[in-house]
Structure formats: C-alpha cells, structure tokens
C-alpha cells in the first residue's frame, strides 16, 4: 500500500516536471509566434496590393489598345472609301496598292485582339492571390488560437524585427512611402551633375 502511494507520487512528480518543461518550451516559442501572427495581416494586405497594381496596369494597356483599335477602324473605313473612289475613276493600280496595304494592316487587328485576350492573365493572378490571402488569414487565426489557448505573451517588439520575413515586410512597407518618383529622381540626378 505504501509502495503503491510512493510509486504514484513519483509518477505524478514526473508528469508535473514534463508539463512544466512543455510549458517552458511553449513560452519560449510563444513570443515569436505571436509576433509572426501579427505580421500576417500586413503580408495579406501586400498581396491584395499586388492585385490592385496588376489590375491598374492591365486596365491601362486595355485603354491604349482600344484607342489603337478605334483609330485603326476609322483609318480602315477611310481607306475603303478612297479605294472605291479610285476604282470609280479607274485608278486600278493605285486602288490595288491601297487594297494590299489595307489587307496587311488588317493583320494587326488580330494582334491587337490577341493583346486584349492575353490580359486575362490578370484575372487568373487575382484569383490565386485571393486564395493565398484566404490561406494567410486562416494560418493567422490558428496562430492566434494557439497564443490564446496557451496564454502566450508577446514580450515587446523585439521579435518583430527578427527574421527574414520581418525584414522583407519592412522593405515592402518602406517601398510604399519611400519610393521616389521620376521627378525627384531627376532632381537628385541633376544635383549630381547629370543633365
């Protein structure tokens, strides 16, 4: 009976030591985990910025392509009228040459349409980015759950500045406010003697 109690006491002591050690290890990883989790919304926001940037670029290429298409359509109509006038006054050689030019230019219509359809890459990129953002948000929720369940505390901001991820996020953030525009670049260049 006494031996049994001693054995149970030893086993409980072993279990308590194991739990204490596990809690200590959890506490050690807790701070970086909390810091990493805090970085994730920022990373997700940068991913969404990516969508916005590709969308803006795509819309601009579309706008310019449509201007070219409209200009070409007008030119083709004018040329067709000129050809019919030339044919009416029996200028077959000239109308033939113009007709050939019209046919050659028509090849570009297909190229312009191919440019438009190639821009559908933006939709595919945007869909993948949205899925990545959903994954990042899910990971963040799980990390927060861990932090809450194990009562892990973030000891200041020390961990935020560590690691490759933190450094890259800082660079991305900085690029928003510190990226210089061409006019400022030109100003600096002129200060250094560039004409």
């Amino acid at each position: 009976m006494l031996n049994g109690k001693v054995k149970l006491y030893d086993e409980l002591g072993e279990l308590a030591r194991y739990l204490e050690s596990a809690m200590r290890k959890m506490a050690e990883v807790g701070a970086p985990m909390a810091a990493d989790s805090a970085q994730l919304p920022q990373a997700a926001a940068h991913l969404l910025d990516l969508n916005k940037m590709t969308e803006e670029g795509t819309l601009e290429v579309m706008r310019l392509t449509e201007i070219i298409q409209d200009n070409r359509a007008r030119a083709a109509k004018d040329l067709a009228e000129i050809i019919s006038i030339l044919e009416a006054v029996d200028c077959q050689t000239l109308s033939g040459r113009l007709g050939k030019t019209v046919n050659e230019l028509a090849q570009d219509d297909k190229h312009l349409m191919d440019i438009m359809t190639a821009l559908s890459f933006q939709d595919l990129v945007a869909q993948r980015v949205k899925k990545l953002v959903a994954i990042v948000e899910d990971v963040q929720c799980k990390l927060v759950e861990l932090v809450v369940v194990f009562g892990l505390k973030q000891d200041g901001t020390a961990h935020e500045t560590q690691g490759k991820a933190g450094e890259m996020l800082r660079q991305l953030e900085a690029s928003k406010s510190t990226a210089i525009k061409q006019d400022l670049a030109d100003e600096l260049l002129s200060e250094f003697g560039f004409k």
Partner: protein
Amino acid sequence: MPADPNMKILVVDDMSTMRRIVKNIMKQLGFANIEEAENGQDALTKLHAESYGFVISDWNMPVMTGIDMLRAIRADDKLKALPVLMVTAEAQKENLIEAIQAGVSNYIVKPFTAEVLQEKMNKIFK
C-alpha cells in the same frame, strides 16, 4: 440559326478586366449590344428585367456563382432556353461535368483566345 449581331448579350464577371476583354472580343466579332453584370444575382435581375439573347459568364463570383446562376436560369420557364457560355478558370473535369449537368451551352477555360470564343459561339448558334 446564326447569331443575330443585334442580339443583347450579358457578360457576367466580378472582374472588370475580364468583362472588358470579353466585350472587346465580342465587339470585334461584330456584336455591339453588350451589357455587364458583376455576379449571378445581378445578372438574374437584369435577365428578368430585359430580353437577352446570350449570356457569357464566369464561375467564381461573390454573392452568386455562375453555376448557381445557370441553375436558376434553367429552372426559370422564361429563361430556360437562353444560351449560356461559361468562361472560367475552373479547369477540373468535375467542374465541366457539373456545368454540363446544370445545362451549360458550352464551356471555355481561361486563358482563352478570340478564336476559341468565336468557335464556341458558332457551335451554340449553328
């Protein structure tokens, strides 16, 4: 019966870039009477309000997906004969089967070319 160049076409996509691409191709193919909707629900409202001859729709959209819109169209006595072409990034075999079962008129996988869109339209309106 060949497609009527004056028929009203509804382009349904949550991405403005995709709507613009499809509109541009349709314009080059000779169809200028085109309207847009941002999701399936928006499209159904427009389809009930006015008469359309053809619908080109994406699959993944907020509020109401393209496949749910397709099912709603096929379940509606007034709309069920309307040709619906799906243009989507959902390229799994299961997606295609699901669309066929829901009554899709034809199916295009993104990215696509103008030739593919024309070919599918020719098949739908032959």
